């Protein structure tokens, strides 16, 4: 298994590809040029053979004019025999001007006509020789006259044998040349590609993660420069890896701390949520327990009111008759009004208790608060102020209300909006440093945007910049440890958003905060 793997690796190597390309190109070029040489040589041999044959024929033709003219067959045969003894000459034929064959020498073996080279030369009388008439008149015909012709045929079998031998020799020489060149090429490539192999070996080592390994740079050629670059890259990766390792450890440490912190906060929130759930259950049960006595108180109050109403004429008559008398520590003239107001207060507050209990139940049971038209925002603010003021007496904090009577009625949930204003006022109260300061609540109408505005301004610590983006997140509070749930602004924003309104915060750290509720005068679309 090892041998095929190494073999396949060698076959895929740069060295082998270069070697393959070079050897193939060398083989093709060698074959091409050797073929050209062989073709040229064969043509040359054939041409030389034809020229030799032609020369033999011309030579014979120049030697035989006289015996040919005299038709001396014996002399012609001797001359033809002398010529035919030349190797490869197949036949010699001498004919007269009248096509009369005087000599025809031919070898006994039969040779196909296609394998014969033929040369036919006319036998011309000596062009310098003149007849007596021409000699006497001084004229000379330099062309000479044809007195016959010589035809020589040469067997090309020997020529073919020479060509075959030439091809074999050329092929053998070119093969040896190719082998030698390929071996030399391999040796040269082996030296040239040594840098590549060192580079590849180094890269393989680095690929395993060993960036400490360094590639040996043998030359300053391209692979050598690449090896230098890879070495620098390895050093850089090594440094980066150490830096990453350090950062990773720091991150893990930080994440560990953060997880612990978040876990702590989450547990606190879970505890708070559990407590709120318990409070909800407690509120639900308390509602039941409060509603019954409250109903009794209300019925008693109503009964007292009706009884006072019935008893008042008698008491007035008695006071008229007997003079003003003391009732409950107060003169009747004063007490008559106080009692009446007390009855009204009992009725109103029991109704309120009933409503609060109802809302508490609804909130704890998750019931939805339906929106109603005709909600007066000033009434909402007044109700919220009543709740806040009754929440606890803070003698050093003044809550001022500036109600605009032109504020139009809106569509919404009276109690949800009260809850929003209460939450904002409670946040303002909690933001006061040392429990001192001024809180202002203003209502107004923005006709340009058809909005009703409620502003709650305090002179508190203000909201730090880094916390402003997290104000509306659930369970986010700077007073978790002091009992804050982190749900006040989240719920407020949820309610206002349900009314198609929005909350705006304007705060300068250390100079107080102004929270503005924007509510549209047009009724929001209620979802079923």
């Amino acid at each position: 298994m090892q041998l095929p793997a190494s073999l396949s690796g060698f076959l895929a190597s740069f060295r082998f590809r270069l070697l393959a390309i070079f050897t193939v190109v060398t083989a093709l070029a060698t074959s091409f040029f050797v073929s050209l040489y062989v073709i040229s040589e064969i043509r040359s041999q054939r041409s030389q053979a034809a020229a030799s044959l032609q020369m033999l024929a011309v030579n014979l033709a120049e030697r035989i004019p006289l015996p040919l003219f005299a038709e001396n067959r014996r002399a012609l045969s001797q001359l033809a025999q002398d010529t035919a003894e030349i190797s490869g000459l197949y036949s010699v034929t001498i004919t007269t001007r009248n096509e009369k064959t005087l000599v025809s020498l031919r070898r006994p073996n039969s040779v196909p006509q296609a394998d014969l080279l033929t040369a036919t030369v006319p036998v011309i009388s000596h062009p310098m020789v003149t007849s007596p008439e021409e000699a006497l008149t001084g004229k000379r015909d330099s062309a000479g006259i044809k007195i016959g012709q010589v035809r020589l045929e040469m067997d090309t079998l020997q020529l073919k044998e020479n060509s075959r031998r030439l091809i074999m020799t050329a092929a053998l020489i070119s093969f040896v040349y190719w082998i030698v060149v390929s071996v030399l090429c391999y040796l040269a490539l082996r030296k040239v590609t040594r840098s590549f192999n060192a580079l590849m070996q180094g890269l393989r080592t680095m690929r395993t993660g060993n960036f400490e390994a360094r590639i040996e740079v043998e030359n300053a050629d391209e692979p050598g420069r690449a090896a230098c670059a890879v070495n620098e890259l390895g050093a850089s990766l090594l440094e980066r890896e150490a830096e990453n390792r350090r950062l990773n450890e720091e991150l893990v440490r930080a994440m560990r701390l953060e997880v612990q912190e978040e876990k702590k906060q989450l547990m606190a929130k879970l505890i708070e949520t559990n407590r709120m759930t318990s409070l909800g259950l407690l509120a639900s049960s308390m509602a039941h327990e409060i509603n019954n006595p409250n109903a009794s108180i209300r019925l008693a109050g109503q009964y007292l009111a009706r009884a006072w109403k019935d008893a008042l004429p008698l008491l007035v008559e008695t006071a008229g008759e007997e003079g003003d008398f003391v009732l409950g520590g107060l003169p009747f003239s004063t007490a008559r009004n106080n009692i009446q107001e007390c009855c009204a207060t009992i009725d109103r507050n029991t109704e309120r208790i009933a409503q609060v209990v109802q809302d508490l139940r609804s909130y704890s049971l998750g019931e939805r608060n339906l929106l109603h038209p005709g909600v007066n925002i000033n009434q909402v603010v007044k109700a919220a102020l009543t709740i806040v003021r009754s929440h606890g007496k803070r003698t050093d904090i003044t809550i001022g209300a500036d109600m605009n009577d032109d504020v139009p009625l809106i569509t919404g949930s009276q109690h949800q909006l009260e809850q929003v204003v209460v939450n904002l006022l409670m946040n303002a109260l909690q933001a006061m440093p040392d429990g001192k300061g001024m809180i202002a609540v203003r209502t107004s109408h923005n006709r340009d945007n058809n909005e009703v505005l409620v502003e709650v301004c305090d002179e508190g610590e203000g909201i730090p910049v880094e916390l402003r983006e997290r104000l509306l997140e659930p369970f986010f509070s700077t007073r978790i440890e002091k009992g804050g749930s982190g749900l006040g602004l989240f719920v407020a924003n949820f309610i206002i958003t349900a009314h198609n309104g929005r909350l705006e915060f304007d705060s300068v750290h250390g100079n107080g905060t102004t929270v503005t509720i924007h509510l549209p005068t047009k009724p929001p679309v209620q979802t079923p």
Partner: protein
Amino acid sequence: MRYLASLILACAMLFPSLAMAYDVLVVQSKHDPAYEEVLRGFRAAFRHTERVVVLSDYAEVDVFRIVREERPGLVLALGDSALTAAKKVRQTPVIAVMSLSITNPNVAQPNLTGIGMYIHPENYMDIFRKLKVRRIGVIYNPARSGWYLRQARQPAKQAGVELILREVHNPKETLSKLSGLAGQVDALWMLPDTVAVTRETAEAYFNFSQEQRVPVVSFASAYLGLGAAAVLEIRRIELGRQAGAMAVSLLKSLAGTDEIDYPDKVVIKTNQSVLKNLGFSSGLFEISGNPARN
């Protein structure tokens, strides 16, 4: 009236004859500088009026009709073709020059005379004497050169030269006859015999000369370049002068003659290289170019 008609008829017959009258009708075989050179010599020796007819300019020329109608005093034939054409004329004297066939016995006729292309044998004998060669090989056709060799016997005898004669009846025999002369002759004598010497066989004389190392004595300088050692060449302008003198003599005597003369003026030309290669002294023919004996 009868006299007037006779006068008109006589004038009609006389005037054209007067208009066409000239002394010599020159019949020339073809346009050739050699013929022109001969004609210049003829004109220089004989002041005359002439009409020149070049046969090669016409498809067919009836010389007999021209002579009959134009009545020249003499016909000068230049070349063999001209001689053949002029032979039809029987009443008017004909002088033939530059013709090889004029010396044929079957060509002779009473009104035909001229100058042959054969040079007097004694001129050749002088050369042989100077070359100091004794056995002279001659290839000849009896019909064409037999008469000449018969005339050459006496001068040869006087010069101490033995003529080794070989007859040929067609040109193909020349080669074998030449082969038969190998080792038997000291020199070859090439005659202007159109059977013994042809374009195809002339080379054989010079091959023989090289192989046997014997000189060839020929009749035209054209053969010097091929290997002839010496030639006797006719001076064409002198040939024309000789013909002109012959014409003057003929017209004065008004008598026909059938004798064929030898050329008067000939020159000896040699190829010194050939002579040197064959072992002859280069000073043998220092008088080369001087007129030879008639």
